[in-house]
C-alpha cells in the first residue's frame, strides 16, 4: 500500500508541483506584501516546471492512486495543452491593463490561475466520477472568482454571478446523473461502469436520463448549446486574459473528460475486436452518436449565426468559440481513433489562433480603450503589423488555407467522411462559410474603412510583438508543415485500458 502510494506520487509530479506553487504563491503574497510583482513570476515558474514534468510523462500509461486518475498519452497531451496555454496567459498578463491596474490583488490572480491549471490537469486524467466532479469544481470555483477579478467594473461581477449560477446548476444536474448511474451500476470508476454495463442489462430509460444529465455537466464546460448561455456574458465581462484562458484551456479539459467518459464507459471490447462499430457498443437501442451529432449541429449553427450580429469583439469571439466547440464535437461523434486524432489536431491549432485573436483584441483595447468593432476602423493604417496578424488569425479561425485552421478542419472532415457522416460534414462546411462573413466584417473595418477620430499610428513595444510572433508563426507554419502535430495527435489518442 505504502509502496503503491509512493509510486503514485512519483507519477503525480506535475500536479504536486502545481499544488506546491499554489501554496507558495499565497504565502509569498503574505510575506512580500510590498513586492506584488514577484508573485506572478513564482506562479509562472511553477506552471512552467509542471509542464516540463508533464512532458517527461510522455509515453507512460498507468493508473495511479488506486485507479482514481490515469497517466496516459491522452492525459499528457491535454496537460501539455493546458500548461502551455497557462504559460502564454501569464505572458499576456504582463501587458494587460486590467490586470496590472490592480497590483495589490495580483496574488489572487496568479495563485488562482495556478489552482485552475491544477484543476484542469486533474480533469485530463480523472477516470473516477468522483475525481471528475472534484476536478471540475476546482477549475470552476477558481474561474468564478477570476471572471469577477476586476470587481469594480459592474459587468465583471455580473459575469461572475451569471457564471456561478449556471455553473452550480450544471454541477447539480451532473451530480444527479452520477448518483443515478451509481445506483444502476454500483460503481463510480469508469472501467467498472463499463464492466457492469457489459455484464448486466440495466433499465435503459434510467440510463438515458443519467447520461443526459451528465452530458449537461460536460456541455456546460465545453459551452455546447443548450448549455452555452453563460459563455457570451462571461467572456465579455471577464478580463481578456481570463477569457482567453477559459476559451482554450477550460474547453480542452472539458473535452478531455467528455471523450474519456464516453469512450471508456460505453465501449464494447468484444465488438471492437470484430469491427470498428464497438465504440458505442454498450448503449444498444439508443444511438448516442446521433444525439451528439444534433448537439454539435446546434452548437456550431447557433454560435455562427449569433456571432454575425455582435459588435463587441470579445462577444464575437465568444460566439465563435461556441461554434468551434461544435466543430470539435463532430470529431467526438465519430469517436474512433481517427476522429479523436482530428479533435486533438484541432485543439493544437485552436490554441494558437484563438489566443492570438484574443491577444490582438487585448493590445488594441489597451490603446484604444474599447473592444467595439467600430474602434477597429482604419486600424490597418494605424498599426499595419497588428492588423495583418489579426487577419491571419481570423483566416485561420474561418478555416481557410494556407493557415493551420485549414488543417484542423481538413482532418475533422476527413474523419467524418471516413465514418460516413456526410450530412454532418456538409453542415460543418456550410457553417465555415457563415463564420467567414463575420470575420471578414472585422477585416473590412480594419482595411477598407477610414479611421474615425484619431489617425495617429499606434505603436507597440518589442516584447509585445515577440509574444504576437510566438502565436503568429505556428498559425502559419502548421498550415504548411503539419506532420509533427498530426504525429503527436496520433500518438496521443491512446488511453489507458483501451486497446
Amino acid at each position: 500500500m505504502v509502496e503503491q502510494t509512493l509510486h503514485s506520487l512519483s507519477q503525480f509530479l506535475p500536479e504536486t508541483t502545481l499544488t506546491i506553487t499554489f501554496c507558495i504563491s499565497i504565502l509569498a503574497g503574505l510575506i512580500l506584501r510590498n513586492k506584488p510583482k514577484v508573485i506572478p513570476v513564482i506562479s509562472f515558474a511553477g506552471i512552467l516546471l509542471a509542464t516540463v514534468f508533464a512532458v517527461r510523462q510522455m509515453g507512460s500509461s498507468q493508473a495511479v492512486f488506486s485507479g482514481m486518475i490515469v497517466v496516459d498519452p491522452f492525459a499528457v497531451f491535454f496537460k501539455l495543452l493546458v500548461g502551455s496555454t497557462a504559460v502564454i496567459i501569464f505572458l499576456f498578463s504582463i501587458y494587460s491593463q486590467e490586470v496590472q491596474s490592480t497590483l495589490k490583488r495580483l496574488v489572487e490572480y496568479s495563485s488562482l490561475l495556478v489552482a485552475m491549471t491544477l484543476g484542469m490537469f486533474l480533469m485530463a486524467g480523472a477516470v473516477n466520477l468522483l475525481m471528475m466532479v472534484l476536478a471540475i469544481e476546482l477549475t470552476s470555483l477558481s474561474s468564478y472568482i477570476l471572471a469577477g477579478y476586476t470587481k469594480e467594473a459592474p459587468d465583471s461581477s455580473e459575469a461572475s454571478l451569471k457564471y456561478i449560477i449556471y455553473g452550480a446548476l450544471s454541477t447539480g444536474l451532473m451530480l444527479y446523473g452520477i448518483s443515478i448511474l451509481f445506483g444502476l451500476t454500483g460503481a463510480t470508476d469508469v472501467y467498472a461502469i463499463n464492466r457492469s454495463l457489459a455484464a448486466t442489462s440495466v433499465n435503459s430509460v434510467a440510463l438515458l436520463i443519467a447520461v443526459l444529465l451528465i452530458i449537461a455537466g460536460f456541455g456546460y464546460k465545453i459551452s455546447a448549446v443548450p448549455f452555452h448561455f453563460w459563455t457570451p456574458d462571461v467572456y465579455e465581462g471577464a478580463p481578456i486574459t481570463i477569457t482567453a484562458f477559459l476559451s482554450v484551456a477550460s474547453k480542452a479539459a472539458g473535452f478531455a473528460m467528455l471523450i474519456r467518459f464516453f469512450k471508456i464507459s460505453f465501449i464494447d471490447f468484444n465488438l471492437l475486436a470484430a469491427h470498428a462499430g464497438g465504440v458505442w457498443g454498450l448503449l444498444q437501442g439508443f444511438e448516442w452518436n446521433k444525439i451528439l451529432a444534433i448537439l454539435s449541429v446546434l452548437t456550431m449553427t447557433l454560435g455562427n449565426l449569433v456571432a454575425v450580429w455582435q459588435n463587441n469583439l470579445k462577444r464575437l469571439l465568444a460566439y465563435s468559440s461556441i461554434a468551434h466547440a461544435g466543430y470539435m464535437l463532430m470529431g467526438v461523434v465519430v469517436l474512433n481513433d481517427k476522429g479523436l486524432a482530428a479533435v486533438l489536431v484541432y485543439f493544437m491549432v485552436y490554441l494558437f489562433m484563438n489566443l492570438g485573436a484574443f491577444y490582438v483584441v487585448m493590445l488594441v483595447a489597451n490603446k484604444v480603450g474599447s473592444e467595439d468593432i467600430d474602434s477597429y476602423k482604419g486600424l490597418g493604417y494605424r498599426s499595419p503589423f497588428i492588423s495583418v496578424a489579426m487577419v491571419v488569425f481570423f483566416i485561420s479561425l474561418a478555416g481557410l488555407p494556407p493557415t493551420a485552421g485549414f488543417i484542423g478542419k481538413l482532418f475533422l472532415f476527413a474523419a467524418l467522411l471516413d465514418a460516413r457522416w456526410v450530412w454532418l460534414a456538409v453542415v460543418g462546411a456550410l457553417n465555415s462559410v457563415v463564420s467567414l462573413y463575420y470575420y471578414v466584417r472585422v477585416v473590412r473595418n480594419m482595411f477598407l474603412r477610414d479611421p474615425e477620430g484619431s489617425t495617429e499610428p499606434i505603436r507597440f513595444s518589442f516584447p509585445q510583438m515577440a509574444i504576437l510572433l510566438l502565436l503568429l508563426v505556428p498559425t502559419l507554419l502548421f498550415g504548411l508543415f503539419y506532420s509533427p502535430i498530426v504525429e503527436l495527435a496520433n500518438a496521443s489518442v491512446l488511453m489507458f485500458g483501451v486497446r
Partner: protein
Amino acid sequence: MVEIQSYLILSAITFIIGVVGVLARRNAIIVFMSIELMLNSVNLTLVAFSAYLGDTTGQMLVFFVMTVAAAEAAVGLAIVIALFRNKQTVNIDDINILKW
C-alpha cells in the same frame, strides 16, 4: 422497511423543485438555496442507493458533495456581495448589462 422507490421518488421531486427554483426565482440568494436543494436531493439518492446496494461508496460520495456545496455557497455569496456593492440589488432581472 421503506422501499427504495420511495426515496428515489422523494429525491426526484426535491431535485425538480430545486431546478425550477433556479430557473424561476429572481432573487440570487433564493437561487443559491435552490441549488443547495438540488445537491441535497443528490445526497438522498446516493444514500438510498448505497443502502440498497450495500456499498458504502455512495455514502462517501455524500461527504464530497457536501464539501462541494459548501465551497460553492461560499464563493457564490461572496460574488453576490461584490455585485451588491456595485448595484445595490440581488434581483437577477436588474442584473442585465450583458445581453445578446
